């Protein structure tokens, strides 16, 4: 579904400030895989998503989506295959427009012609879909999205992403800005939608427990490279201490004050 070949990305290349964010990156994600990605700040996780979605062009290497070389395609062209959700709940919706207008814009990918498709049938369809969120949004379709809470907006963004029928979902810490209760709700919705729509998914998270609990494959990134890649049986039996051990084995350095530990580490004592 996604194939990255020798991908590299350097910011300010050729200057003294040159910073290589992604180096020598090779990754193949098969259709239907649910990949969780962890790594400390600056590991290159979001840059990786930017390279896949085309909001950033690689310095070298190729990007394949659905057996098609899309390296030269601009972001809006690749968007046909991709559904992307950001950490910021405001990023996925137009806040000064109504719920139904937002859903109308996102329910179909591609160019929009000047025809009116938002009719009674469409509204009924949106209402049916909103009921699944169990947030009471089906009664607020004429309200501006800005009146929703962060959790509601992110759940709505998730729903709109799924309804636009992408082949691949890119989730960039999409629950990180929410309170624990809403984060749990959105995470439940995420897994349900991924299962129901058989989405190939890449999910960045800062939470080691999430990375282990969800998905069929786990990648750990560090300094622009994949350092751990586990799936199948091995992934099923993975624990946070085991993961940390693997990391320490590879890097042979004290794990000490790494920020990543802050979220995963709290639960270390079982």
């Amino acid at each position, binding site marked *: 579904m996604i194939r990255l070949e020798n991908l590299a990305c350097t910011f300010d290349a050729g200057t003294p400030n040159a910073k290589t964010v992604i180096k020598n990156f090779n990754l193949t994600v098969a259709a239907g895989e649910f990949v969780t990605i962890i790594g400390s700040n600056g590991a290159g996780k979001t840059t990786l998503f930017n390279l896949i*979605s085309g*909001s950033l062009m690689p310095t070298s290497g190729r990007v394949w989506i659905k057996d098609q070389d899309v390296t030269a395609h*601009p*972001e*809006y*062209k690749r*968007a*046909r295959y*991709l*559904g*992307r959700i*950001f950490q910021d709940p*405001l*990023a*996925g*919706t*137009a*806040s*000064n*427009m109504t719920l139904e*207008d*937002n859903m*109308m*814009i*996102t329910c179909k*990918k*591609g*160019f*929009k*012609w*000047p*025809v*009116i*498709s*938002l009719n009674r049938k469409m509204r009924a369809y949106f209402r049916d879909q909103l009921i699944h969120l169990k947030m009471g949004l089906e009664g607020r379709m004429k309200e*501006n999205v800005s009146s929703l809470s962060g959790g509601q907006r992110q759940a709505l963004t998730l729903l709109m992403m799924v309804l*636009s029928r992408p082949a691949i979902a890119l989730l960039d810490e999409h629950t990180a800005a929410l309170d624990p209760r809403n984060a749990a709700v959105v995470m439940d919705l995420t897994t349900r939608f991924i299962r129901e729509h058989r989405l190939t998914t890449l999910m960045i998270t800062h939470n080691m427990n999430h990375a282990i609990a969800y998905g069929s494959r786990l990648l750990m990134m560090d300094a622009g490279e994949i350092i751990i890649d586990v799936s199948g049986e091995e992934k099923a039996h993975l624990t946070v201490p085991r993961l940390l051990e693997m990391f320490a084995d590879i890097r042979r350095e004290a794990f000490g004050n790494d920020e990543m530990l802050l979220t995963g580490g709290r639960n270390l004592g079982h």
Partner: protein
Amino acid sequence: MLEGIFVEGLIYAIMALGVFFTFRILDFPDLTVDGSFPLGAVIMATSLTAGQNPLAGLLLAFGGGVLAGFVTAAIHNRLKVPHLLAGILTMTMLYSVNIRILDNRANLPLLRVDTVLTHVAAWAENRIPVEWAALIFFILVVLIIKLALDLFFHTDMGLVFGALGNNEQMVRVQGVNPATLKLIGVGLSNGLVALSGAFAAQYQGFADVNLGQGIVVSGLASVMLGEFIIKSNRIGMLTLRVILGAILFKAIMYLGRFYGYYINMTPNDLKLIAGILIIASLAVTNYRRIRGKGGTAA
């Protein structure tokens, strides 16, 4: 005089609707307006003197405005030039283009040709006073344009326009090229502006290449005055308040022109007044936002 304010207000309302489209919906501050307004006027005047019927002249003027908008959007999209600069470039170039269209003249009187208004006057003869006929005519024209715009903003494309000014990333993620949308939007907006210029030339009885000086400022002032009168988020109200704002702006300018001498004001001060109106609107909006939202970012 009263119907004069309304007629001029309505003519300028068409231009203000164009300015509203770019400034408020697209979030694309477009200065092409200062060139596309006289462009519409000179195209109209030239085609009328060439013996074309007024409807053809209006269509040509609209088309010319759309092309002018395309140029600005293309400069911005292709060369990654900031929108303000792209607009200034087109506006400046249009000054020369407009003089060319007028066959190397700076103005063209329309005294001996049949304009839309002569047709309206001919129809009104023996029925209703001519001034009232003109007023009714322009109310109809503006109403049709307003309703067409309202309808447009309810279409799929119109909705994406709404999202574009709000959240460009969302539009891109949807697989729509923002550059194409900007091309269409800025084109349509300038088409309206040129249409307004075409009507203005016929109403004043001449086309002048300097007709557009500072017009974008008066358009913006109209939009902001409208936002004062009505608070709403519904598109029908948004376009309505632009029209009301344009009429109110014209009224204020009339007052300034006719009664300004009491306070030693001359017509030359009107542009200063227009600018101060905008600054005052901005200041009050800012104040309201800070108070209304308790300091949270809007």
